[in-house]
């Protein structure tokens, strides 16, 4: 496949967001008729790369070159989706870019007609769309409003949108994330058909199984870098899993400790969420004092439901839940705070602090009813301030002062503030959900140190993370979450990350090992 002249070349693409290097000098070549999978964990830089290709972002360095039809390559104008479309590049975004108040056909023709045209019907457009539907097998009601369509149907409209423009390159960003397995199978068949007709397809995914099923070639990204590229036919499942999650093992600084009494027990707990991402099925979990239980999993496999359950924000629909050895009477966040549950939320800006309130107010906000913080029903600002000053000093929170609004703080400092708030209460159970995501190395190390210190003081910790290095370094035991089910993997010393990677993809413990 690769002997054909390329239709697209990415040349040294580099993109930074503040201190984060999202793409580091990435090279990729695409030939007509091949399906290339872009594989990597969340945050590896896959979507950023494709957003640069499609012109949503502008690269800090590097260029996109497309075949110009005369046998050569020419540079694509950066930062312009219009130019990308004109060059024959189409993209199916993970979050669909469809106007929901328009019909499928209207979304398809949007932007293809001269904007100032007054007359002229849609007859030709309709005929062309109908022909494309026939040829590709993507059947959908073109006259239904998008908000009446299922997610799978919306995706078909998205693909038709690109095909309608006669694209040469089709990028699909996590296309199966929203599909049922049957719908995903249907999509793969369509992609094979389109590739056979000469379309070059880029398929972004973090799911190993489907990448192996559909692609001809696999490019693996990790932490913004391309760490490997291989022919799918010659690829070894294990080797790719290793490549994707990385081999560097951070030295474990965990001291051996004897676990104490159970602080959290889940026994066959079901949570019926709005969708699969927010559901749990028969989840059982034991967390004892003085241990860290790491929850490994690809995002969207029920972590949100588990976190909401442990924070007291959601009640189980079935099964038993015990806190500190006692059945939970009230599933409400205040009762949980009073029972000694500390919450380090996933989205620290949105769920962790109130940006408009001061650092001091944010320190006190979760237990403002506690004795020290109020006096005859009035807030004791002096006490709050002194607590905040201590937090700023002890946790090295870099901020203008206790009265500064929390939104001025960087992500790492917000995280330190949250840690100061919850750890100073001397909690019995800590829920740390993606506690180091997006943080720089220094702040990550600080968060790790604090969690380990809390463990030594006697807290039980549930660490939900997509970072296997972090899980292997901190956890006493690793539990894998997949499709809302929890599976015990064991202590990290007895595990290798390939096994965990396979379990994250839905394989059983024995199957993976």
């Amino acid at each position, binding site marked *: 496949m690769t002997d054909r002249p390329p239709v697209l070349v990415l040349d040294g693409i580099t993109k930074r967001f503040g201190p984060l290097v999202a793409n580091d000098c990435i090279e990729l070549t695409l030939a007509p008729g091949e399906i290339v999978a872009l594989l990597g964990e969340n945050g590896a830089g896959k979507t950023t790369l494709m957003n640069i290709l499609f012109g*949503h972002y502008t690269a800090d360095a590097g260029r996109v070159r497309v075949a110009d039809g005369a046998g050569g390559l020419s540079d694509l104008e950066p930062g312009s989706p219009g130019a990308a479309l004109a060059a024959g590049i189409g993209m199916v975004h993970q979050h669909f*870019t*469809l*106007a929901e108040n328009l019909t499928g056909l209207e979304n398809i023709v*949007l*932007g293809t007609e001269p*904007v100032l045209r007054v007359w002229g019907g849609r007859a030709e457009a309709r005929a062309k769309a109908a022909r494309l539907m026939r040829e590709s097998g993507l059947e959908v009601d073109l006259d239904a409003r998008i908000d009446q369509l299922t997610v799978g149907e919306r995706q078909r409209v998205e693909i038709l949108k690109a095909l309608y423009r006669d694209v040469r390159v089709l990028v699909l960003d996590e296309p199966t994330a929203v599909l049922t397995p049957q719908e995903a199978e249907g999509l793969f068949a369509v992609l094979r058909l389109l590739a056979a007709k000469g379309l070059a397809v880029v398929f972004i995914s973090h799911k190993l199984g489907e990448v192996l099923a559909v692609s001809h070639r696999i490019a693996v990204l990790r932490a913004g870098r391309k760490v490997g590229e291989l022919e799918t036919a010659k690829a070894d499942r294990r080797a790719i899993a290793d490549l994707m999650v990385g081999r560097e093992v951070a030295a474990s600084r965990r001291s051996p400790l004897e676990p104490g009494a159970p602080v959290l027990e889940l026994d066959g707990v079901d949570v019926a969420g709005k969708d699969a991402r927010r559901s749990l099925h028969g989840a059982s979990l034991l967390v004892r004092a003085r241990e860290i239980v790491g929850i490994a999993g690809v995002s969207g496999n029920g972590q949100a439901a588990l976190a909401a359950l442990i924070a007291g924000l959601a009640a189980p629909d079935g099964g038993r839940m015990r806190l500190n050895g006692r059945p939970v009477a009230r599933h409400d966040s205040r009762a949980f705070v009073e029972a000694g549950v500390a919450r380090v939320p996933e989205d620290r800006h949105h769920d962790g602090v109130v940006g408009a309130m001061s650092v001091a107010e944010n320190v006190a906000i979760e237990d403002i009813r506690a004795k020290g913080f109020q006096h005859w029903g009035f807030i004791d600002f002096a006490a709050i301030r002194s607590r905040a000053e201590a937090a700023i000093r002890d946790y090295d929170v870099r901020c203008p002062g206790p009265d500064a609004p929390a939104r001025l703080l960087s992500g790492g400092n917000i995280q330190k503030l949250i840690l100061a708030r919850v750890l100073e209460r001397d909690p019995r159970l800590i829920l740390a959900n993606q506690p180091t995501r997006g943080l720089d190395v220094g702040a990550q190390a600080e968060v790790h140190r604090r969690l380990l210190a809390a463990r030594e003081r006697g807290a039980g910790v549930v660490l939900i993370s997509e970072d296997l290095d972090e899980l292997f370094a901190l956890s006493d035991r690793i539990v894998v979450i997949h499709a809302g089910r929890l599976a015990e993997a064991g202590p990290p010393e007895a595990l290798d990350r390939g096994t965990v990677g396979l379990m994250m993809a839905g394989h059983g413990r024995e199957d993976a090992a």
Partner: protein
Amino acid sequence: MEVLDILLTVNFWAASVRIATPMIFGVLGALVCERAGVLNLGIEGIFTAGAMAGWMAVWAGADLWTGVAVAAAAGGLFGLIHAILTVPLGLSQHVSGIGVTLLASSLSYFIYRTALPDVTTPPRIAPFRPVDIPVLSDLPFIGPVLFQQTPLTLLAFVLVGVVAFVLYRTPLGLAIRAVGDNPASVEAQGLSVHALRMGAVVAGSGLMAMGGAFLTMSAFDAFFFGMVNGRGWICIALTVFASWRPGKALLGALLFGAFDAFQVRLQTEVGAFLPSQVFLMLPYLLSIAALVAVARKADYPRAMLTPWFKGQR
């Protein structure tokens, strides 16, 4: 019985249409802005600016249609201010809109006072005259209600059709409806979100200003302080009532006009028993009631009030 007889008079219906006219312009303008995703609370000030600018152009010697064009241009200018603040700069649409209202009305009064420092009674112009269309104007009932109005009223009715046609039958309208629902859909198809939104706000503001011009050049023949008197705000409410559809916008404006015409006549019938303020409240109360009944099902432009920035994460 006399109260219901009001509804049967030609006079009442003609007055309803006349009162509805500025509202038709205003609702159409607000609808165009909001369909693109931008709430334009500058409407009250833009009405005032249109009323003042149109009137002043005619007073200074221009003909009436030039006056209307001047009013629309003045409205477009204030719309441009609102558009720049809210679209590329992404500032709060509420704050910017209120600011434009304060700026536009104050500036209008200031210019009026500066140009005419000494007058005590507002100078008059020769306003639009009712049209006389052969056959149509002579029809019974329909004739006096619809075809003996001034040209601006007829223009308002025509514009309802034009706006509906542009929104639902042209690629431009398609893009405007899309950008108000999901800007990413427009961006991903290679169109400019900012250009579409700014264009819609400027055009919509021009329409609003024509509503103001109707007041000084058709309904009355002079410019008074406070003459817009909340009409702009009512248009914002009527836009919700209309579910952002031009046809329903016409209906809403006519409904308001009918309420207003009705209360004036009601005052003369039963005014002895109730203070006049109660009647003045009536159209607003009824508008609110109608709004509550309809707005529950309103199909909001989903991206309204949400600024859009390219390449945001």
